[in-house]
């Protein structure tokens, strides 16, 4: 891995170049910080905690046309595959937990023998430039789930601010070239090598920051919860104030459930997939009226076990990056860290 240093000014120049040839999506401070296509580097917020919504919506759209159809066409031409909108994109300045979530989503959407072409095309056409964390938000727990402020998973380029600078344009960053794709973003740009002292300084700062993050419940033990605590009353206890909305799931960078629905008008229409969530009662409702998870606590249990037991079993890691958005988003103030602690005591 090549490691260089770059000034904010040079970085802005790079961004200018990127915006000329592809879409650049970056954090922008409006009411709060949101991901948004940007036209220039000046719009980008580099001093933020985290974006309101995660990056998953860039790859896995809240609503997405899978296919279009025209019933008035010849029978073998009824179905038209949806056109790809996977334009070359740079996802710039996102947090390490976001980039890590992409590697988790990959395991689901790109699992052989089926590959989700919509996700795959966007993923293949998007370079991810990560901005390492220099401070932690109140809901951050990335180190408990294998991530960290300096986690390079899923990053093509990784930026670490090493000098804030009195003026924004005076900031200096360490720039790690993590992948080939990352290197291709720097074509024609002469990246000065970072000296060992700076690298050392940056990794020490990240380690110090990581050390301030509290480790939540023992996730290795929680992995056994499906076997040892499946019928424990703890599930009823933790979800007392859950109202069964999907704020947690829709703001989760790794939740990926969806529904497929047809929309039609005058013989033409679309087959669309929309985000869906296991917290909704009708999620598993059969046409016969039977529901395998009719109770709220069963649905909360599904969400937790899926993330911390079954996803690790199938894909080798927890389906959680510790961004804490679900804690912030829960209208009732439920806290997944508290839930996991309570469950951990029962396994």
């Amino acid at each position, binding site marked *: 891995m090549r490691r260089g240093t770059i000034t904010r000014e040079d970085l802005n120049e790079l961004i200018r170049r990127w915006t000329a040839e592809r879409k650049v999506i970056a954090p922008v401070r409006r009411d709060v910080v949101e991901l948004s296509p940007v036209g220039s580097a000046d719009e980008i917020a580099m001093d933020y905690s985290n974006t309101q919504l995660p990056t998953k919506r860039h790859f896995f759209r809240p609503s997405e046309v899978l296919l279009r159809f025209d019933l008035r066409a010849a029978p*073998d031409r009824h179905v038209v595959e949806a056109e790809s909108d996977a334009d*070359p994109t740079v996802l710039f300045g996102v947090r390490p937990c976001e980039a890590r979530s992409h590697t988790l989503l990959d395991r*689901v959407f790109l699992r052989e023998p*089926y590959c989700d072409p919509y996700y795959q095309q966007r993923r*293949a056409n998007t370079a991810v430039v990560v901005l390492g964390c220099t401070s932690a938000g109140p809901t951050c727990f990335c180190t408990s789930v294998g991530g960290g402020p300096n986690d390079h998973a899923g990053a093509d380029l990784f930026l670490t601010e090493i000098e804030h600078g009195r003026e924004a344009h005076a900031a200096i960053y360490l720039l790690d070239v993590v992948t080939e794709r990352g290197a291709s973003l720097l074509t024609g740009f002469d990246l000065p090598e970072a000296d060992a002292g700076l690298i050392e300084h940056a990794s020490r700062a990240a380690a110090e920051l990581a050390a301030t993050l509290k480790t939540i419940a023992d996730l290795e033990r929680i992995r056994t919860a499906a076997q040892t605590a499946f019928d424990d009353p703890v599930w009823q206890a933790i979800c007392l104030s859950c109202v069964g909305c999907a704020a947690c799931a829709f703001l989760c960078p790794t939740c990926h459930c969806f*529904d*497929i629905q047809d929309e039609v008008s005058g013989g033409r229409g679309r087959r669309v*997939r929309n985000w869906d969530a296991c917290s909704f009662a009708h*999620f598993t409702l059969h046409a016969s009226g039977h529901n395998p998870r009719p109770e709220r606590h069963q649905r909360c249990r599904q969400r937790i076990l899926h993330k911390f037991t079954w996803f690790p079993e199938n894909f080798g890691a927890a389906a959680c990056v510790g961004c804490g958005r679900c804690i912030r988003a829960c209208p009732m103030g439920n806290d997944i860290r508290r839930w996991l602690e309570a469950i951990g005591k029962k396994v």
Partner: protein
Amino acid sequence: MTMDNKNHLHAPVPQDTRASTASVSSMPSLSPREQKPISNPYLPLQTRVETIRVETDDRMLRTFIVRFIRPDDVERFRYRPGQFAEVSLLGRGEAPIGIASSPTEGDALAFTIHRAGIVTTAIHQLRPGDLLGVRGPLGNGFPIERLEGCNLVIIGGGFAFTTLRSLAVYAMAPHHRGRFGRITILYGARRPGLLLYRSELREWQERSDIEVFVTVDAAEGEWSGRVGFVPAVTKDVAPGSDNAFALVCGPPMMIKYTLPILSDLGFPPERILLSLEMRMKCGIGICGRCNIGPKYVCRDGPVFSLAELKKLPPEY
């Protein structure tokens, strides 16, 4: 993946085009135009309805015999008994339906569809010549290779006999019959008018190379066959468990009372195979809807052994 022998239960045969789904990291390209298009697992293959047969006297079940519009789709849709497809009407949506035909029966597919929700109700309005989308084949299907050389005890109840029919027809086909030992079929419905595939059942009963027991919970009309619940008839017939597999599909109550009888007859949980139904959408293990614990019924199932199910949470 789902059974004790990994080789026998794989997901649908990967097509050449599907095999090109390389991981993202190996694809540094930033231009979508340069990429080879990958096969889209959400696209239905178009079929035309050839024949529609009303199966039950309440008209709630109909069998649709369909044929692919594009001849090369037959090759793309090579299936085994026990697999299912997402059957769809454009504008209405998709429903997961077990494949009732056997690959030994030629290029046409058969789906026996219960009118239950929006999609299946709309499909029931179809007439011969209409179009039906089919996406698949999906799921693991019955582990034919493992069943080879063994006796088959096929136990079905009500509407859930469809993929068992596929298996039975497959095993009875002249060039397959020799691969299996004794074949015993037990099939029951609430009353005679609700039995599926009635004329076929009569033909099967004439055959000397299989044993067929058809029963109803309550007789009516000119019914002269057995009367009794499937579990009771199973106990009565007492199929031997030596070198045998029991393949069970039916309503939850039937399964609940049949399983202990099979255990009493000496069937180990590894040799009792069940096919499950769940609400599904994608059918390929992505949309997250049909899981039972870590297993997705659409991808890891729908066929599970009782031994596997005992390790899973009772959420089905």
